[in-house]
């Protein structure tokens, strides 16, 4: 059980947040930390645990966001149904990208995922008749839980917390289960895993499809929370990089890492936006400069991420096993 202590502390603090804090700005920060942490965790399932680095995960995020928004605005259906539809569509897209991953490695796979997200961006921004084109879709606010029209930010905190815990558990499953060990074997040396009788290809495809579906769920909830879907945001390469960045800073292939990474980058972004948001819009780019530099520095100097680094540090202090 000691292994779960850091996670219990993290999610416990998040759960106490709405009790202790009433400030809408801080609650918004907490919601976004949990949401981006969940999205980074979903990326981590493919990028960290299966070793399939994607920079097109916004394809799935956008599919989720658009499904929820379009089903609501066009057919007056519940965003929960939209969430489901988005997850199904993303699973299909994930299966096809997963199939590609068996033929392509490294940079080739990355390029294929970028291409997928860009195709969807163009479709979403040009198909005016259906998606409202480049103006984006305002998501109507329809009060009620079934329609996800929730004004109270505290409820959102618990919704996102549920999502975050779900993703944490999925990742823990990948660390502890037989399937997870097999996946790790595939990631480290696919040929060796194959020769031991591991169904490497099928495992990789399933991991990517699951990662895609979970990312779509995050996208659907994000669209309902923010209330506006902009194709150039939900399908941007920058957003894909952000998922990856949170997971890498936190620790690739660790369950709590993406959440720690999300705490860091979401806090930094919210702070800098608040500081520079009004003064000449260009200055908002400062946090992205920091992202870029952080990415270069982390992969070079701390490739194991925060979780690995903290784990080492704790071990050296003779507290083995408390972290990780």
């Amino acid at each position, binding site marked *: 059980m000691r292994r779960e202590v850091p996670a219990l502390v993290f999610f416990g603090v998040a759960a106490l947040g709405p009790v202790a804090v009433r400030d809408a700005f801080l609650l918004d920060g907490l919601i976004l930390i949990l949401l981006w942490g969940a999205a980074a965790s979903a990326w981590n399932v493919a990028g960290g645990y299966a070793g399939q680095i994607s920079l097109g995960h916004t394809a799935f995020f956008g599919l989720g966001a658009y499904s929820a928004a379009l089903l609501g605005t066009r057919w007056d259906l519940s965003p929960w149904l939209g969430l489901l539809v988005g997850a199904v569509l993303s699973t299909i897209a994930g299966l096809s990208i997963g199939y590609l991953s068996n033929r392509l490695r490294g940079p080739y796979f990355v390029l294929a995922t970028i*291409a997928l997200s860009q195709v969807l961006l163009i479709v979403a921004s040009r198909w005016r008749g259906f998606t409202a084109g480049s103006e984006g879709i305002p998501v109507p606010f329809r009060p009620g839980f079934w329609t996800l029209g929730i004004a109270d930010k505290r409820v959102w905190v618990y919704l996102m917390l549920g999502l975050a815990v779900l993703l944490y558990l999925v990742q823990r499953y990948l660390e502890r289960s037989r399937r997870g060990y097999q996946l790790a074997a595939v990631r480290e040396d696919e040929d060796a895993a194959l020769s031991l009788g591991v169904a490497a290809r099928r495992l990789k495809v399933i991991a990517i499809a699951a990662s895609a579906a979970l990312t779509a769920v995050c996208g659907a909830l994000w669209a309902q929370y923010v209330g506006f879907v902009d194709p150039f945001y939900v399908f941007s*390469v*920058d957003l894909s990089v952000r998922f990856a960045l949170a997971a890498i800073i936190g620790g690739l292939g660790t369950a709590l890492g993406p959440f720690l990474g999300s705490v860091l980058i979401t806090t930094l972004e919210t702070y800098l936006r608040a500081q520079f948001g009004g003064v000449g819009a260009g200055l908002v*780019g400062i946090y*992205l400069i920091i992202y*870029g530099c952080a*990415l270069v520095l982390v992969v070079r100097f701390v490739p194991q991420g925060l979780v690995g680094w903290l784990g080492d540090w704790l071990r050296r202090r003779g507290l083995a096993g408390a972290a990780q």
Partner: protein
Amino acid sequence: MPSPSVSAIPQLLVSTILLGGIYALIAVGLTLIFGVMRVVNFAHGEFVMLGMYLAFWAFTFLGLDPYVMLFIALPVFFVAGLASYRLVMRPVIHASHNVQIFTTVGLSIALQNVALVLWTGDFRFVRTEYYSVVVRLGTTAFNISQIAAFAVAVAFTAALFAFMRWSYTGRVMRATAQDRQAAGLMGIDTDRVYALTWAIGIVCVGVAGVLLAPLYQVYPTVGLQFVLIAYVVVVLGGLGDMAGAVLGSLIVAAVEVVGSYVIGTAWKEVLYLLLFIAILLVRPAGLFGQRGAEQLGT
């Protein structure tokens, strides 16, 4: 937009060749870096953007014509290439693919946003006196800046080919591309080869950026548009294959030109991205690459 007709064919052909020449210059730099260093440069588009801004500011503040700027851009980008290699690429040159991918992605984000912070997100354009001069030849018409860009791009690409083919340094670079360990054993200083390769690749895109400045608007994320094309081109031609990149450029330009003519400009990007995914599915090593090249480690 006129309905598709046979009389448009000469014009489409000329447009394809002009566009293909410029794409080739961007793609050759990318494929050279991949061929020798085995690194896909995800920050490639940002150097196109920097080239375009360099031309824009030189034109706005100093009144320098973009074609004069070319001679200044050459050493500027060579030094920028050496510096970015030393600072960013050199420490990860023997690291895993994933580390290299994220290093260049990080470089890309940082450069994009440095441009955003310094120069805002405004769309800017180099409006030379001759920007609207149109040359007519038979039934075809084309912009004079397009021809100039094409001519310089072709000359530059040809010079690079000659350099790789006949110069001693070019031979050393090709040897390193073939087998970096053997090259090292033969006494080749691979670190210097990588630095030079990276710098030459950056010069290619920087020059391409300067050439594009009188033709396209410049803004901080303009690079993505060109680099996506370059990815399609180099995968089509086989990553690392310079002659393939030139042919790939012509194919992609043809898809773009004919596509915009037949179905309109709004959807042309979808066409080459679908072409890209189709190539990856059917023949990921590229049209001329060796089968299985995409599965190579380092």
